């Protein structure tokens, strides 16, 4: 439940989310050379498809967010990529929302970009231990998103605080699934196409 729907958050939270998203998307677009747009767009489409796959974890099934991987493969350009994916999702499936587009973009993209910037150089360098680091990246990114979603709810109304903590508990299976799947994807890409682990925008 990373996509907060319309009608839940308060106006100040929505507006600050939108402002932060504009800054992030703007930064990302500046790094995204015109000629890299096809690559970024197709990569975003592939990551979007990946997030539609339902993966069983324990008694439930989860959809991976792949935000850490996005940060690794796209760098700051993950902000516009996430924005585009969320807009598409709102238009195609009626998921997420329009007014929450900014908040959701920041909640999903920011942890991925930040943790990928932190762990990315090590992941690209390391040969053994790469999978473990990538798993950590996936888990941390999802945890960061969970924290931000809970924060958005708690800041909107103090009545939501208990809901926010329940929500955090539901992120545990997500973190497990995300960690294992991200680790495998990165190990696979490292073997088959190491260049893919470099950010598209640079």
């Amino acid at each position: 439940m990373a996509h907060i729907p319309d009608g839940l958050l308060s106006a100040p939270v929505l507006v600050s989310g939108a402002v932060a998203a504009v800054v992030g998307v703007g930064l990302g677009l500046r790094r995204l050379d015109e000629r890299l747009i096809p690559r970024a767009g197709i990569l975003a489409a592939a990551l979007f498809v990946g997030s539609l796959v339902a993966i069983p974890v324990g008694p439930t099934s989860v959809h991976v967010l792949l935000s850490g991987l996005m940060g690794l493969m796209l760098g700051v350009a993950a902000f516009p990529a996430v924005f585009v994916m969320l807009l598409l999702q709102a238009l195609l499936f009626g998921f997420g929302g329009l007014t929450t587009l900014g908040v959701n973009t920041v909640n999903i993209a920011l942890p991925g970009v930040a943790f990928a910037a932190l762990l990315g150089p090590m992941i690209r360098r390391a040969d053994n231990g790469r999978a473990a680091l990538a798993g950590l990246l996936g888990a941390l990114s999802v945890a960061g998103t969970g924290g931000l979603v809970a924060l958005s709810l708690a800041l909107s109304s103090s009545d939501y605080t208990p809901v926010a903590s329940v929500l955090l508990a539901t992120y545990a299976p997500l973190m497990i699934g995300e960690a294992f799947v991200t680790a495998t994807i990165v190990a696979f890409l490292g073997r088959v196409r190491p260049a893919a682990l470099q950010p598209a925008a640079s």
Partner: protein
Amino acid sequence: MPDDPRLRLVAALVAVSAISLLRTVPVAAAAFALAALATALRRPEPRFWRRLLHVEMFVLLLFVTLPFTVAGPAVATLGPFTVSGAGLWRATLVALKVSASVLLLRVLLGDLEPERLGAVLRALLVPERLAHLFVMTARYVALIRDEARRLMDAMRARSFRPRSSRHTWRSYGNLLGMILVRALERAERVQEAMLCRGYAGRYRSLPLDAPQARDWACFALLSGAAILAVVIDRL
């Protein structure tokens, strides 16, 4: 309903923003009733209702917690917990607002073609690069989804059964890795093809027809109703 996609997108944004500002249950209920009526008139496919259920998970979570945690006079007791009227009221309000927004978005934006939205976004002053990125993503999602479906059919043909195990996670990881590798190869081919045809970061987007008087009228009606709802709500 405005036919013009630009006005429809703006009207949706106005209406949904207005709904998220509502504070009283009667007005939210009226908004929900209108949105539900409009949805029912359009006869959505059964798949839509299943997706709606997914969105309502948030609402369910609120209904389970809010009546017990919001302080107020108790209307009922469940063992050691008391249900407060204020909490119940609050949960109803949020449920109505979230549901009305989802239904309205579906009605207003459900049949827009994503491939054609690039020109719409440009017309609404979205930066050109962002509009390009959107068009590229929208174009390739359907294609890559088919590719993913083929890869998953191949896994199933080798009697892969998803379970909660490391084997499953590793298999899905490899599947997604393969999807990404194929996407990157496709991106290279697409990029070369585009460069061959003189792409230099600019497209010609097809001109959109000017909105008709009917579009403007529908747009005015919708946004007027949205603003009126907020005003009544605050009275």
